[in-house]
């Protein structure tokens, strides 16, 4: 095993690139999973159909590719770094070394790790719900459409699907693997999650948020179109304008 006491400039640059790759992949994963959720919300409703389900399959295959790649890279990133300097005794040789850049490096990698695992958990719960709903509302026969709930949604998922298609992951073109069906997909992700948690000991509670509470308020997003609040939008005919109040005071 080569001693890593002295890190070459090239090595550090490589790690930096790898981290950047992971960050971009993380953003892509976030985009794909949020689109998946938008599609899943229409499951079982009047907007449900084979088009929707196909789009959902596509979306989750993409998510799966990103997840696989990300997990491999993160595992590599964090096992290279070795155990966290804070846990290791002075006597032991730490691969990261006591240099401050090593500690920072470790912290950033841990942050990415926690980010990925949270995203994975969140996506997994969405997948389970979707699996449940698809089982409950199978569209195999014609009169199954009668049981779809009229929720007021007409299909508008084309744009969402387009958004998914626009997602770029750094390694998409390199790896082509088979896409599993939903049950296997869930099982694979669960295995991935437990494997990652077992392989690398990361104290996830030591990661601190970079944003303060309420930092996301009133960002550029909300001000783009002069967004109205839902209350204002819902003010239709016959809808009285009530101030927000607690149940007990309303009669």
């Amino acid at each position, binding site marked *: 095993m080569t001693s890593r006491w002295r890190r070459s400039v090239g090595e550090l640059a490589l790690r930096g690139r790898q981290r950047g790759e992971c960050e971009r992949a993380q953003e892509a994963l976030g985009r794909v999973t949020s689109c998946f959720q938008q599609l899943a919300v229409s499951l079982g409703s009047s907007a449900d159909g084979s088009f929707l389900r196909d789009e959902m399959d596509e979306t989750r295959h993409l998510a799966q590719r990103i997840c696989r790649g990300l997990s491999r890279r993160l595992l590599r990133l964090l096992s290279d770094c070795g155990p966290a300097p804070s846990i290791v005794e002075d006597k032991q040789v730490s691969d990261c070394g006591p240099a401050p850049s090593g500690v920072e490096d470790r912290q950033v990698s841990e*942050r990415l790790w926690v*980010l990925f695992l949270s995203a994975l958990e969140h996506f997994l719960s969405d997948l389970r719900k979707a699996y449940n709903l698809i089982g409950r509302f199978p569209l195999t026969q014609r009169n199954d459409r009668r049981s779809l709930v*009229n929720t007021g949604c*007409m299909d508008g998922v084309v744009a*969402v699907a387009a958004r998914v298609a626009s997602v770029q992951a750094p390694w998409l073109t390199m790896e082509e693997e088979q896409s599993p069906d939903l049950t296997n997909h869930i099982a694979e992700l669960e295995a991935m999650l437990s494997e990652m948690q077992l392989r690398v000991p990361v104290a996830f509670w030591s990661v601190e948020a970079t944003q303060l509470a309420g930092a996301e308020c009133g960002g550029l997003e909300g001000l783009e179109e002069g967004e109205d609040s839902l209350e204002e939008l819902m003010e239709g005919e016959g809808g009285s304008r009530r101030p927000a109040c607690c149940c007990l005071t309303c009669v």
Partner: protein
Amino acid sequence: MTIRNTLQDHGQRYRPRMACLKKSEKVLLEMQDPKTGLKSQPQRLVITTIPHAITGEDIIAWLADRLQVDTQEARSFGSMLVALGYIYPLQDHKRLVIKPDASLYRFQTPYFWPTQQWPVEDTDYAIYLAKRNIRKKGILEMHEQEHYNRLHKWMNHKWDFIVMQAKEQYRAAKERKKPDRVVFDCQERAYWVVHRPPPGTVSAMDYGLDRQIDPNSDEAVTPDFYERIMIFTQQSIMRPRVKSSVSIGALVKYCATYNNHDPFLSNCLPSNPWITDDVTFWTLNMPCVEIPTKMRVERWTFSFAELLSDTRGRDDFRLFLKKEFSGENLAFWEACEDLKWGKAASIKEKAEHIYKTFLARGAPRWINIDGKTMEVTVKGLKHPHRYVLDPAQTHIYMLMKKDSYGRYQKSPVFKDTVKKAICPDEHRFSGAQLEQNSKKRRPSLSPIILRQMEQEQRAKMAANIDITQLCRFTTPVPHLAVYSGFTDYSHCHRLTLPHLPGPHPGLSVPHQRGPGQHLGV
């Protein structure tokens, strides 16, 4: 990434069966059937028109027709569907009830239906609140803001993910057409009103404690399984039976007696804390309160068990017995209870103490039980166990019940208590005050502190016992006035009477004189 099972749950981590959910879903699917279900109408908004809105009165009429019930019942059932989150109101979205007029409702999409298997995650709630923040600053309500701050603190490690995901979800939602976006926002908002209700409201998804056994798993059918069924059935057959007329009569009598005393069935004074969040009712009815309430005192007259089980009632009874110089009965009964319910290691010690104090010849607080029971008890005390004093305790209990209890109710002590008992005025809170109350809710005294207070009380009482009766080996003279005072015998002369076997070590026999002479202290 979530720390699960942070509490000592003794293996209880399964959400219980919620049969109402499956049943509601069946009704709901029928309700929205295009042929046999409800007729929907479009909802007209300023910017657009959204289909599939249904009116409250239509819902109630359809339910009454389909389930063959009257309107009132259909209305409560409809409200239950709303409270569970299967239908949501379009106007007045915070009140989850069905209004029997033209107010509009819509079906909730199955993704947002309540599930039994999965609890509603805080992560999702945090993302939802962050999304609301992104949309418009300062739009969160007070309780939502509190939740937000709390989640930011406890989910700090995930917070970057939460904000990132919120932004992505916001952007993804904007990709949809305007009417669909409005519908989605309504659906999401309705979902969170059901699962994170504002304070002061009751959530229909409350289910009490988690269970030990997973209701979704199938029980393995083994010989053991059948054996348990057999044992259960055999025990059911062997159970002693009572005529239903008798048992129902007892239930009716109980209900009639206690109806006015139940805080949920009738108005409790000053006000029901569960409804108004004002704890005066509990403070007035604390175990060791000086002046009890009228309702409480009335309950003491219902039965002797009721009197004894209420701490304040027992104190009053003890006072009465002290004046009557028969406090030893109650003391003995309490000592027996202590033995029965106490630690196994202390049984021997307690049994000895009870024998010395109450049962032995020449005991300072000797109790009057019949010869046979005394024989049985003394024999049993050679090898004491938890229930060794049961016959004696029962005898004393019946004695107190038949004799002292009646006299207690006619006594000046009780009459005094009744006169002094308070009847508080009813609270009349306005809406704003109710909100204030709900914000001022605080947890009650910790059980550790309560137990310490209890132990102090008991120690104080033990220090104050009065020894009030003669030993049974003196000439029986019931009209003789007896000593009452403290256990400090330094005033009394130590006298060994010739026909006594001798005083027990550590105990002194009170000074005895012949009949017809009064002794004062």
